[in-house]
Structures are given as structure tokens and as C-alpha cells.
């Protein structure tokens, strides 16, 4: 009997309106679960000729193995598909739906095909219904969820897209609940292309646990321990929550000013962020969290007459520095607007900051933006841009393909201002100062999860400890120092592996980072072996993670990915202000870092996985497909 895994994957074909169940077990030895399953399925089933908006494209919703169990902070899933930029993309979300999918009895949900009219999916344990969604098409994400709940019942958990996804905007997100978002990558547009407004799940089953009493004991201990760690205490009811995050973004040098600009850029242009306590007292409603998590990381805000929604974590970065705003109300409101329209807030923040730079430099005028001057920090400009991009009206149409499309449309000068990695903008993070973040951004199509390396990110909080741990893990304390290049490739390599493991298990990367300081896997691994009854060690999981990452890369290479590049601007400009003022990213050293990373992964200088790498990870049949591709490319 299979424990931990449910052993079933649900596949839905929207073209034929049919659904069936597949077996997970063959995938388990090599790809474990979660993200691993999706990457393998997409690698096997989607050739490079299939574009993101083709009906053949798959979108996989894969909860972690431990989602739906009592393991604290494990309600996470990865959504994987060929993204609008043409490459394989993963985007993660928490909330309640990952656990609900597991409780309904599925390890993975794969949606393929394309419906003729708008539909939504309703899965109640083994019953699968494809329902008409014409009446909710065009609704914002919160209203759509409410209508579905009225139709089915309050207990159903929903992931849906907003008008942005329906309009195939390539910076749209998938949202579940009030504020859990799979943002980066624009996967909302993939659901939109399939005419799939939402997926709704109700599960009343259980995840089978192999050794329940030990599992329960460890869960209990972990839960109580987590609550006592300093990182979690800060988030608790009496703690600070995210109140200090805006100041921290500036003090730690992580926040970005404008569109990675150097000229006329200073934090003084933005002004004071004001008191967090005051803002939370005035507009804060309450906190809430994901399913089965001791940390309630979301703050719900009620801005009377404007909006109501949740803001958390990096949400505070997206509409502050980049768009020259210091008013917490505007930042929260812009973020909630993005969530309601189903736009990825980070990419939308980038899009607005891109427009603001063009306006500031005189490349565009208000005539190009429907009479709205894109002045730096102008809240009217921000709200108008969000609405127009999502609804695809007026100048918003320029952004159907994100900043990449807009820059091409506007002209050469604008293209120089577009800071893009493989057609995608960067997460709001100062990659010029944080070197491992720069490396991670180029590898991950702009996504910088925890600055590429947790040591580097946390250096601002706790220098001594991070340097000591970096010395232990990577043999040099320089690995923790943001502006150093030393051992950065190794730390990014290690962090990517660890992040992939937690994506397979469903561990929340934020909680594990905040509780253990770095990504320590001992507890999740022990929970996994108690839950599944299999003796899967940390080494084996890290090995599987490398296998998955190799396959993910191979998938990208088949789709035309060559050596990774960063936009020119990041090498040519320096950090304009803050503690890393004047810090530059050296192109030469960056290339060295990249070469080092490729060799650690067993890829050649263009980032193509070598044959021996495939063999090392036992990817024989995958190599055959890859080899055919290489030969056809000549």
C-alpha cells in the first residue's frame, strides 16, 4: 500500500471534455513528487513545437507529498506549464487548495486541451465535473470565487484567474483564496487560453500515513518549536508581522529604485514610509494563513471605499521603490488591485516602473498613455496602468506580451530601457548588489527566490551567523557576503537543489527559511520518511532534485535556450543609493560565476546538459529524446 502519495493523478482533457485517472507510482522512484512529476510529464509529452497557447500545452497543479497531512507549513503546490515566454515555468502557491487536492485523492492534476467556451472545473473527490463558466467570465478573482462558492458550497477551495488571464496577458497570475498567488511566469494566461476560469476542489479523504504515532509526535514537536523560533515570533499576533518590511527593503539594500535606474535615483525621491503601526491599526483587519500552518502570514486590509484584500511579504516591495511610492495605502491598494484583476504584482510593478522611466526621460508623453502622465510615484498613473493592462484597454494593450512586447512596440529607445531575462521582468530585488541573486535571476527567467542564496539574503539580519554557516557549507564566508563573487555559484547550486526538494515535499520555503535560518532539510525529510514509510534520505532527495533540474533545463534547451544572459543595463549601471551605493555587477566575473555553475550542474558552456549528466542521473530514455533534438538542430 502506498503511503503519503495517493497514487493517483487526475488528467482532464478540455477538448474532449473527458477526465481520467493515472498512476503516480512509476514516477515516484526517480521524480519523488510535486514539481518532479510535472516536469517529467511536460518533458515527455510536450515537444518544442508546442507553443504556450496551443491546446496541447499542459498545465499541472502539483501539491507536495506532505500537503494535506498534519505536517506544519506544508500546504504548497507548484503550477507548471509552458509559460507565455515559451519556456517551462514553475510558479508556486500556498493557501488551502494544495491540501484540498491531496485530500480529494490526487498527487497531481493535469489539464490539457482547450474548451470552446469558458468553463470551470469542479472536482469532489472522485467526481469530476466540467461546468459552464460563461457567467463568471470577466469577473475579478474574488467575485468569481464567491459566485462559485454560492453554486457549489462554501467549503470548496478554488484557484482562478482574473480578467488579465482571460485576456491572455502574459503577466497574469493564478490566485487562490484572498491572496495566495502563483504569480511569476504568467501562467494565468495559459488557463485563459484553455478557457478555464477556475478549478474548484473539495476533498474529504485523508492522506495515508505509514507511521502515524511517530509522525504525529514529530508534527507536534515541529509545530511547537516553530512557534518559538525568533523568525516566527516576529510574525505572530503580538509581533511585528510585515510592518517593518518596507524599511527593511531599503535598509538591507534589497529594494529596487525605479526600473534599475542610476540617474536621478535616490531614496530621498520617495520620501518617508510613515509608521507601519499606524497604518495597520487604521486599515488592518486581521491576519490569516495557509492550511495547517502555525504562521499566519497574510494581513487583510480594509481600505474603505477602495478595496479589501491581503498583502504579504514581497507585495510590499512591488509598488514601493520601483514606482517611487512611499504611501503604504497606495502600495497595498495597488497590490490588492493586481490580485483582483489577476495580474502578477511584481511584473506589473516592473511594467509601471518601465513606463515611468520612459516618461521621465521624455521617450513617451501623456499622449502615448491615454492622457495620463506617467509621472514617477503618481498613484493615478499606477492604478490606471493596472486596470488598463488587465482589461486590455487603451495603452494597456501594449503590455499584452508584458514589458517585452511594449518595448518592441514603442521602439528602440524603449527596448534599451526594458530590463528583461527571456522576455520576463525581474523580481523586485537589487541584483546588482546581490551577486547570487543575479545568477539566480538569469537562470530562473527573472525569478529570484530568496536572493538565490539564503545566506546572502539573511546577511543583513545576522552577519556573523550567516558567514559562519557559509564557511561550513561552502568553505568560504564570502559566500554570505552579497557583493562578493566567491563561491556564489556553489551556493546558488545548493540553494536550487534544496528549493527543489521542498517543492517536491510541499514545504513552504518562506517558513522553512524563517525558522531554520537557512534551508535545512532534516525535519521535512524525517516527516517524509515517517509519512511514506520509505527510507528516503536527504542525499537521495537532493540527488532527485538535481535530476529534476537537469530535465527542466533540457526542456528549456529544446525550446531554444542558449547560454543565459542578463540585460545590458544591469552591467552598465551601478546601485544608485542605499548601503550598496555604487556597487556594480561585473560582466566578466558574472560570466565566470555562470561557467562555474554550469560545470557544477554538468552542463556545457551554453547551459546544455551533457550526456554524462543524463547518464549520471539515470535519465536514459530522456536522453534519447534530447539526443534526437540535438541531432536535428545539427
Amino acid at each position, binding site marked *: 500500500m502506498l503511503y503519503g502519495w495517493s497514487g493517483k493523478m487526475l488528467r482532464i482533457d478540455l477538448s474532449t471534455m473527458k477526465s481520467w485517472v493515472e498512476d503516480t507510482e512509476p514516477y515516484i522512484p526517480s521524480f519523488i513528487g510535486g514539481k518532479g512529476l510535472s516536469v517529467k510529464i511536460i518533458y515527455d509529452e510536450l515537444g518544442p513545437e508546442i507553443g504556450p497557447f496551443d491546446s496541447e500545452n499542459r498545465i499541472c497543479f502539483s501539491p507536495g507529498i506532505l500537503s494535506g*497531512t*498534519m505536517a*506544519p507549513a506544508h500546504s504548497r503546490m507548484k503550477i507548471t506549464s509552458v509559460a507565455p515566454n515559451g519556456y517551462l515555468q514553475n510558479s508556486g502557491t500556498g*493557501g*488551502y487548495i494544495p*491540501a484540498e487536492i491531496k485530500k480529494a485523492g490526487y498527487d497531481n492534476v493535469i489539464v490539457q486541451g482547450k474548451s470552446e467556451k469558458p468553463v470551470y472545473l469542479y472536482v469532489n473527490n472522485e467526481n469530476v465535473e466540467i461546468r459552464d463558466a460563461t457567467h463568471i467570465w470577466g469577473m475579478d478573482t*474574488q467575485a468569481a*470565487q*464567491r459566485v462559485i*462558492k454560492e453554486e457549489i458550497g*462554501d*467549503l470548496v*477551495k478554488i484557484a482562478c484567474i482574473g480578467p488579465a488571464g482571460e485576456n491572455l496577458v502574459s503577466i497574469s497570475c493564478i490566485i*487562490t*483564496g*484572498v*491572496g495566495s498567488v502563483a504569480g511569476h511566469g504568467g501562467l494565468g494566461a495559459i488557463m485563459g487560453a484553455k478557457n478555464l476560469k477556475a478549478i474548484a476542489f473539495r476533498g474529504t479523504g*485523508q492522506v495515508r*500515513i505509514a507511521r*502515524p*504515532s511517530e*509522525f*504525529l509526535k514529530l*508534527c*507536534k514537536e515541529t*509545530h*511547537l518549536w516553530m*512557534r518559538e523560533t525568533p523568525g516566527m515570533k516576529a510574525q*505572530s*499576533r503580538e509581533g511585528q508581522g510585515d510592518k517593518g518590511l518596507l524599511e527593511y527593503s531599503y535598509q538591507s539594500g534589497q529594494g529596487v529604485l525605479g526600473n534599475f535606474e542610476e540617474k536621478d535615483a535616490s531614496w530621498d525621491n520617495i520620501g518617508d514610509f510613515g509608521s507601519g503601526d499606524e497604518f495597520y491599526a487604521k486599515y488592518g483587519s*486581521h*491576519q*490569516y*494563513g*495557509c*492550511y*495547517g*500552518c*502555525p*504562521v*499566519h502570514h*497574510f494581513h*487583510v486590509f480594509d481600505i474603505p471605499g477602495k478595496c479589501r484584500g*491581503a498583502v504579504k511579504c514581497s507585495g510590499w516591495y512591488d509598488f514601493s521603490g520601483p514606482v517611487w511610492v512611499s504611501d503604504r495605502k497606495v502600495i497595498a491598494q495597488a497590490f490588492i488591485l493586481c490580485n483582483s484583476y489577476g495580474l502578477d504584482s511584481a511584473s506589473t510593478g516592473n511594467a509601471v516602473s518601465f513606463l515611468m522611466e520612459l516618461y521621465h526621460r521624455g521617450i513617451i508623453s501623456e499622449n502615448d498613455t491615454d492622457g495620463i502622465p506617467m509621472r514617477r510615484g503618481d498613484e493615478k498613473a499606477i492604478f490606471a496602468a493596472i486596470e488598463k493592462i488587465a482589461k486590455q484597454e487603451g495603452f494597456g494593450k501594449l503590455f499584452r506580451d508584458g514589458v517585452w512586447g511594449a518595448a518592441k512596440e514603442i521602439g528602440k529607445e524603449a527596448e534599451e530601457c526594458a530590463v528583461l531575462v527571456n522576455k520576463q521582468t525581474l523580481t523586485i530585488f537589487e541584483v546588482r548588489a546581490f551577486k547570487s541573486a543575479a545568477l539566480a535571476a538569469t537562470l530562473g527567467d527573472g525569478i529570484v527566490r530568496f536572493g538565490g542564496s539564503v545566506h546572502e539574503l539573511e546577511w543583513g539580519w545576522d552577519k556573523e551567523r550567516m558567514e559562519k554557516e557559509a564557511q561550513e557549507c561552502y568553505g568560504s564566508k564570502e559566500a554570505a557576503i552579497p557583493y562578493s563573487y566567491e563561491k556564489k555559484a556553489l551556493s546558488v547550486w545548493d540553494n536550487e537543489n534544496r528549493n527543489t526538494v521542498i517543492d517536491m515535499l510541499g514545504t513552504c520555503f518562506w517558513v522553512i527559511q524563517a525558522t531554520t535560518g537557512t534551508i535545512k532539510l532534516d525535519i521535512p525529510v524525517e516527516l517524509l520518511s515517517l509519512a511514506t514509510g520509505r527510507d528516503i534520505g536527504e542525499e537521495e532527495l537532493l540527488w532527485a532534485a538535481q535530476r529534476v533540474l537537469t530535465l527542466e533545463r533540457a526542456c528549456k534547451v529544446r525550446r531554444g535556450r542558449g547560454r543565459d544572459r542578463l540585460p545590458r543595463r544591469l552591467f552598465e549601471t551601478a546601485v544608485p543609493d542605499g548601503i550598496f551605493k555604487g556597487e556594480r555587477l561585473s560582466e566578466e566575473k558574472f560570466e565566470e560565476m555562470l561557467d562555474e555553475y554550469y560545470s557544477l550542474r554538468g552542463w556545457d558552456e551554453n547551459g546544455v546538459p551533457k550526456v554524462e549528466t543524463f547518464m549520471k542521473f539515470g535519465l536514459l530514455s530522456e536522453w534519447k529524446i534530447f539526443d534526437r533534438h540535438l541531432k536535428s538542430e545539427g
Partner: protein
Amino acid sequence: MVNTLVIDYSRCHGCGECELACATISKMNKGSSRPRIMSFIWDVEGWGIPIACQHCQDAPCRAVCPTGAIYRDEEFNRVMVNYKRCIGCRMCMAVCPFGAMDFDREVNRVIKCDLCDGDPLCVKLCSYEALQYIDVKEQSIPKKTEVAEKIREILLGRKTGSKAGLIQE
């Protein structure tokens, strides 16, 4: 001292940890994985309300039970089901005003909260103290305090700004 399960609904954030813990421990001890406490979650608002047996003094389930299977256990101040007598007619479910009495298909009998024999796991794992296992006498104290404070403020004439003690110019 007799403790009881007290729920402060305003503190619940709907993480569902209580129902997960209950399901896990119930599966282990009683073979049924249906939770005795259920957290109803409105994830669009970010809100949750846990529902569990209130262990009523004059319990309707106990009154209606045709075989007298439901009894009060004064040791833990709880309402319990004697399964030797229970015939599974589900009358208790019909009359429970909270819907706390549940039926589990796995074991084919009614199930309810038994306060984990005096050490409820859900309370231990509730991060925000929405669930408390306290002396019944203590339950009303926080609310009483709140009301008393309000009245005190009014009586002290907070609105006019004067407070007890020396008046400082």
C-alpha cells in the same frame, strides 16, 4: 477544577490545524479519520470558525438517545458515547444544535469530541489561542473585564480628558 474547551472565534484565523490534528490523532486512537472539530474556512475573506461539541450540561443528544448510550462524564466534564449501547440511529445528530455530532462511514458510528481525555491536542496546536482548555469559571472573565473597562472609561469621563489621581495642569 474542571477544564473545558473554550473557543474565542474572533481569534481564529482559519488555519485548520485543529481539524488536522484531530483527524490524525483520531485515526490513530479510534480508527476514524474524520475530525471531531471542524474549521469552516472562508478563504476569500481569510476567516475561519471552528465548530466542536460544547459538552452541554443539559445535552439534547443525551436526552434524545433511546438507549441511554450518551452520558456525562463528570471527571472531564464531557459528554460521551457508550458504544456498547449505541445503536447508530443518529438521533443525536438530528438534535445537536451545533452539528457537532458526526457520523463516520469508516467505523460506521457517531463520533464526537472527547477532549482527548483531558489533554486536547487541538488546543496545544492553536497558534493564536482561539482554542483554550480552561476552567469554566475563567471563561467569562475576559469578556467581563472588557465590559468593565468600557464602563470604567465612561465613568472616569475619558471624553473630557480628566483621569483619576492628581489633576495636572
